[in-house]
């Protein structure tokens, strides 16, 4: 790859720490939501089909989903916190719409933060199912 010089006016006064940034970070939290969703669904389905039977109680599956939810929420919160750190890097505020490495860094952080918020709420939505439903009926 060819190193090229960018004009002075495009160089950020406060360049972010040199790390290889990727797009993957913004997908972390939604992915955690998806894994939590799938595992909850699979656990309940297999339990009802193979263990408890159609009339049976959800029993321990509710606790398992509860624990899984805590783990998922912790993961989402950590990702969100990481996003928050990127977002509040330097002293600029949103919208991060300048052509600088700093704003790109903050934008990726802010997107991560917002998606973590959405994933947090969506994960709680799913977890509420085992709060209200106790049987396989």
């Amino acid at each position, binding site marked *: 790859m060819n190193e090229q010089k960018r004009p002075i006016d495009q160089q950020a006064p406060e360049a972010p720490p040199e790390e290889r940034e990727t797009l993957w970070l913004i997908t972390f939290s939604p992915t955690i939501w998806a894994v939590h969703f799938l595992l909850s*669904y699979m656990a*309940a389905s297999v339990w009802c089909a193979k263990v408890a039977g159609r009339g049976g109680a959800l029993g321990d599956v509710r606790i398992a989903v509860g624990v899984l939810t805590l783990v998922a929420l912790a993961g989402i919160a950590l990702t969100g916190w990481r996003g928050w750190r990127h977002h509040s890097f330097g002293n600029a505020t949103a919208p991060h719409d300048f052509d600088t490495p700093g704003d*790109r860094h903050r934008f990726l952080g802010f997107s991560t933060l917002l998606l973590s918020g*959405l994933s947090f709420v969506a994960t709680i*939505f799913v977890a509420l199912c085992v709060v209200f439903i106790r049987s*396989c009926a």
Partner: protein
Amino acid sequence: MSEPNLYRDADDEARATAQAKRLAAAWKTPTGWRYWSAVNNSEVGLWYTGVAFLFFLFAGVLAMLIRAQLAVPDNDLLSADTYNQVFTLHGSVMMFLFGVPIFEAFSILILPQMLGARDLPFPRLSAYGFWCFIIGGVFVCGSIFFGVAPQGGWFMYPPLSTTYQEGLGADIWLLGLSFIEVSSIAAAVELIVGVLKTRPPGMRINLIPLYSWYILVVAGMILFAFPPLIAGDLLFELERAFDWPFFDHTRGGDPLLWQHLFWIFGHPEVYIIFLPAVALVATIVPTASGRPIVGYTFIVLAAVGTGFISFGLWVHHMFTTGMPDISLAFFSAASEAVAIPTGVQIFCFLATALAGRFVKSVPMLFVAGALAIFVLGGLTGVMVALAPFDFQAHDTYFIVAHLHYVLIGGMLFPVIAGLYYFFPLAMSKTLSERLGRIAFWLMFIGFNVAFMPMHFTGLLGMPRRVYTYAPDMGFDVLNMVSTVGSVILAAGVAVLVWDVLRPKGKQPYSKRNPWNAGSLEWLAEMPGESWGMRSIPIIKSRYPLWDQPGLMRDVDAGRFYLPDAEEGKRETLISSIIDAEPIQCLRVPGPTFLTMWAAIFTGGLFIFATYSWYVAALVSGGLALVTILIWLWTGTAIIPEKPQKGIGLGVTVPLYASGAKSVGWWATFITMIGDMSAFGSLVFGYFFFWTVHDDFPPADSPGPGVFWPVLALGLIAASWALTLLARRCNARNQAPGFYGALGLAVPCTLAGAYSLWAGPHFNGLDPTLNVYPATVWVLVLWCLLHLAIGLIMQLYCLARRGAGRMTAVHDIDIRNVALFWHFILITAGVTVAVIAGFPEVL
């Protein structure tokens, strides 16, 4: 070029004129009958859009037939059979031949312009996708004229479509549409790589147009949504053609598996259709408001968030199938959650419109209408996401009303807004403001008159898909009103069609940037040039035309990147994913008929198979393979005449890149992600049957054993390792090592394939007997198909190096093949673990 002060002096002008001439020659559109060999995005995108609209009009006519039939009770305009064909095709065509393709078409047409690229990275792939689309589409649509169209509804539920309906209809649906799904995946690959890798220098990830964010998300969704349907189609067709009982409960199958696979596709599909249309809204609203979008990051949140959550909704189409309440609840919860990101973006649009200086225009009128209609559809969506309400409304006209409010508000109106907005970009002429307003009001009023009453018809109990109803059940007046509304809606569409088709010879060209937009695509000259952009600018803003003074002049004067085509080749810039720094000058291929032939032969494979003419299908498939190999051999991974070139402004970049730096590697990787999700769906099928049966694998059925599958896995792993070794030897220019390793890999692949087949074969697994052997066989077949492709790739690499088309440095082929083999290893490993390992664990 007559603008004063465009050039510094006469020399500058002479230089620029010579450059422009060379550029025009390189990008010249073929003329005469060779026009159809064009592969450039501006031609293919235009054809694609036009054909998708033709299918839309066709499906619209079918809709009018439905409304005519239902206008009065006990009508006999259409027979029950014809009516079934009409509504099935209406739904299938609107979804598969208009809803999804129109987004691909629009994106192929305008995305390169938005990104300041000359073309997408794989123009021939777009062309191949287009030809597949038109062949498959005409085949599916044409069936109704012979009375053999599919009749099972757009979701083709078995056992209705396997046991109770005769004829070819279901096969036409399965094979014709599978063929089109392939072209959707091709477009998805193209668009993902396009958004990530062909951006102009400076367009960092926080500056890309919102349109590209949506396209990125939607293309990613296609990779996970379409493959399950392809897997489902495979199972379905194996049942119809060879009596493998996947959905036949008498032999252990289960029709619900089809419903799962269909809706794992079908629900994300709704968002695959909806999000690109919202992307158009996100493009039009800032222009009409004369200000940047409010809440850019929030819209990114909405796009990405919707993309994920939309995969947790599929069972809400299956609320009445008798699954446990807890399962329904999970999907109901996710269905409610998806309303959050959907709402966020609508508030962002409203805020932008309120915060700016609003300029009234036809596109904005359609956007306003779209939001009004879509919000109503969204609200009924929240209602039907609640399982108890859905139990009542399921399969009634309430659902018909809901889905049309969502799709027409969320997709059709924004697409027409986009049509008015982008028409000058594609055709260099504007559409009529006056006709646009007439079309809008006819469509808006007609739509509401047609579909609002259906909420009530549905709540009164009228079921979907009945070809007639008895009088005095309370449906008469409501149905008549709906039919009158549909005629008004159709009149609006007719006005629109006239506006698009009316001769515009005498009308002057549109002025440049007719809407005073801020985004890059409006740099386009009127009339447009086939090179797209005179030079590729440096971007410093989300709205460069508003924020970068003199940008248009400097671009026109060729003061930025790639202003010339010294070697007479088509070139575009490849940039890094996050910061869009130029990293490669990509030579893109020019016109060819190969893509059309490849599509015709691929079409033959699917179409002949529909009629069970398997010999013809195999011959056609073989010809398709040969054509594609010729295309690859002559048109890809070409070794450039020099390692690098100056692209202007003192920047020099390589002309060739392989491995993770090359666009081809990314395309392979992305395609294989899609491939993995199809494979995952087949594995899901195996475990689905395990959960629904008390004994799966059945105690009395033989399995594939352990010996043959494990041996197969060992041989396949050896072939994989040898392929990696060959890649390494090639990179070190050790020819004997390369030929030796790859030469040895070929027999390993063959022996691995044989062993994999031997397991179920020698243990006497009969796939027609029971669903268990059928499921084992389908996993094995899937693996064998991949091994066949992997084998061809190994032989191809041997030939490439032998012919001097691949060297130690120029090693795109072997690197992509090695990547493919990683996925073969995963496929084989999982297959063996499931078919041989899982029964041992139980």
